[in-house]
């Protein structure tokens, strides 16, 4: 089965083609295209966005030499929001042994929350079960207890924005098999299971948005999206230094930092460095000050958004940064200062080939990884629930 992972970003569109054999996943193709018609992760010009997405898909198919059958699509954007809802049930059995029906009931109750009109659920992320207040990392089935609790972090988005993204893919005559939150995709890619168990905050700073996911007890605890990204740094430079966006982007990539390390305010850097007409000098200190101020503010907002969910004690694995803007120098130090925990840049797993090790591919890689894992988990759950014994049990339960 050939699966495509599509990330429709603000600055570029990434497509990876994976061959999934049911056991392992091999990445066999890649397509990339500069993004148009997308602002802050949201499609604002359907035609332009479709053209470049389809172009990237076509490149990826050509590179893979195979036709994509379905797509896992990354979802981001400022319209995404999340809330936490939990439920508890008293265990039915007289011997207090938890069975499948108890688990299903408590899960259904925890997920049952009405959304405002025009909003749709993107993800229901389950937090670990608790039996009589005791944390259970796995399934609580067959454990003994009187009360079973579970909570869900529900991510929801605006229906039209979600539909726009899906229709862009459908316009290429492809079906969207999974819609995956970009923060979860990239977070799964740059964190290990151990780190997620200890607690880690994954921040993916893209061009238009910043996606973050806080992991605790092995699962995503809180997720969020800020409609602020690398383009804001460029914009700040453009305004502060009176440059065009292109020139500001160039300066950001070459001299931008998330902290100020240049002490000499007179230290100058050239815009182009080729001594051509129009080439100008700028204070490096000023550049660093502008970019670091915005980065600092961005990370502060992330911390504020997390609120009580984040504390250095429950996030012992620290902060991991990824995304195109995470290439900004000194960003890990800044993050460490703000969050009060160790911070580092996300590293691509060793099994990923050299040409896909750029942080910009983390989301697309994570899409394939997360999408395939989720699909496999769902398939095995449906196999379990449709087994002969399950059907017989259900028959008696309904009687």
């Amino acid at each position, binding site marked *: 089965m050939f699966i495509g992972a599509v990330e429709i970003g603000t600055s570029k569109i990434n497509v990876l083609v994976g061959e999934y054999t049911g056991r392992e996943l091999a990445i066999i193709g890649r397509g990339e295209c500069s993004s148009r018609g997308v602002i802050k992760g949201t499609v604002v010009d359907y035609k332009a966005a479709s053209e470049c997405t389809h172009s990237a898909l076509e490149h990826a198919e050509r590179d893979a030499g195979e036709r994509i059958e379905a797509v896992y699509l990354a979802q981001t954007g400022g319209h995404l929001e999340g809330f936490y809802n939990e439920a508890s049930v008293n265990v039915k059995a007289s011997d207090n042994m938890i069975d499948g029906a108890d688990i299903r009931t408590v899960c259904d109750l925890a997920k049952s929350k009405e*959304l405002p009109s025009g909003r749709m659920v993107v993800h229901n992320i389950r937090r670990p079960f608790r039996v009589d207040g005791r944390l259970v990392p796995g399934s609580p089935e067959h454990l003994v207890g009187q009360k079973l609790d579970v909570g869900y972090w529900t991510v929801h988005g605006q229906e039209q924005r979600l539909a726009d993204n899906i229709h862009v893919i459908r316009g290429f005559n492809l079906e969207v098999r999974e819609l995956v939150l970009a923060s979860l995709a990239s977070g799964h890619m740059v964190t290990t299971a151990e780190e997620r168990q200890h607690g880690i905050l994954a921040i993916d700073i893209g061009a238009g948005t910043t996606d973050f996911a806080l992991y605790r007890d092995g699962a995503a605890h809180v997720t969020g999206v800020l409609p602020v990204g690398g383009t804001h740094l460029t914009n700040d430079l453009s305004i502060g230094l009176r440059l065009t966006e292109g020139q500001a982007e160039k300066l950001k990539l070459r001299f931008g930092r998330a902290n100020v390390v240049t002490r000499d305010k007179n230290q100058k850097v050239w815009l182009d460095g080729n001594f051509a007409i129009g080439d100008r000098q700028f204070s490096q200190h000023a550049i660093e000050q502008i970019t670091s101020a915005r980065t600092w503010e961005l990370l502060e907002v992330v911390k504020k958004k997390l609120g009580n969910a984040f504390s250095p004690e429950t996030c012992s694995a620290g902060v991991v940064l990824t995304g195109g803007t995470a290439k900004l120098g000194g960003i890990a130090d800044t993050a460490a200062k703000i969050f009060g925990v160790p911070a580092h840049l996300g590293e691509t797993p060793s099994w990923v080939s050299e040409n896909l090790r750029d942080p910009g591919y983390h989301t697309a890689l994570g899409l394939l990884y997360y999408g395939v894992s989720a699909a496999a988990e769902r398939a095995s759950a449906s196999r379990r629930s449709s087994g002969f014994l399950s059907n017989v049990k259900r028959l008696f339960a309904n009687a």
Partner: protein
Amino acid sequence: MTRDSVNLPNARTWREIPQPVVPRAMSREGQWRLLMAAVRIAAASVIGGGALWAGWLVFAAVRENVRVMPAAARATPLRAPELRTDGVLDGAWLARTLALPAKTTLLELDLQKLRTRLLAEQQVATATLTKNFPDRLVVTISERNPVARVMTQMLGQKRALLVARDGVIYVGEGYDRATLETLPWLDGVKIVPAGGGFRPIAGMEQAAELLSKARLEAEHLYSTWGVISLARLATDRKLEVRTKDGRVLVYFTTNDDFFRQLAKLDYIADALGSRDPAASAVIDLSLGQDVPVMVTPAPAEEPAASGPRRVARLSSASTTRDEHAAMAFRPDLPADGDRPASHPTLFVPPHPQFSQPNREL
């Protein structure tokens, strides 16, 4: 507590967003992919259909070609075919008709050919042949039943054949001779040779209906019938029936119920028989309520060739309208012998009530 028992609100998920294929919203690449997908589906359908058809051809060839059959399947010789029939044909006839070679096997039989051979015998209306492995052939047939006899002439030779309800003319085999003697002869029909036999007779169904009704409801009348003629069926919708002794000629019409006509005939026959059993009569039942009956006294009683003819009219209306009929009811009506021979005598028997047919006929 389950989802059914606690009415939980259901939040809509992104999976409920429809993913329709709208060609106008597609890019050129998307439309090309859509076209290619349609072509692939069409090609797959054609290939699949072709494979099925080829498979059927191979299967048919294997089924027909006994040479490729395994030797073990051809080892068991066929037992005598079993006949299941609703008529009079027997196993000897079946063996003669099928003419199967000795030591043939079930797999070697061509059922279509054998069926054609059976249906060539006009006495067989339908035939079904079933192979019961390993060595039995079951033949189930339905036979035609004769309703009349017809005399044919071919190559200067006269030959009596049987006619079935559907007009098919056939030789007939296995019937009881006495039963065949009771069948009336068919007259007034054109017998056209076709192939090795004759074309079916048109209009035979109506004649067969009359004969079967008469046989069932008025056996004593039917047993006297010698000839049934279809000569005036096409033109006047009339069937002519003549008794075996030739004295009585009856016209039936296909426009009216045969049962009513038979009831009238029975009544008239009774009336005639009580007055002059040896008289000849022509009875026309085709005119509805009016039944003209022309009676000719027996020659022995009336030696003169131009003897008196008596005509009776059976009609309820005639009792009031017809002057002669009114005369017939006069108590002082003289006996037939007292009337001048040159004047016909009219007599009107009381009108029979047909609204409730006498089932004892």
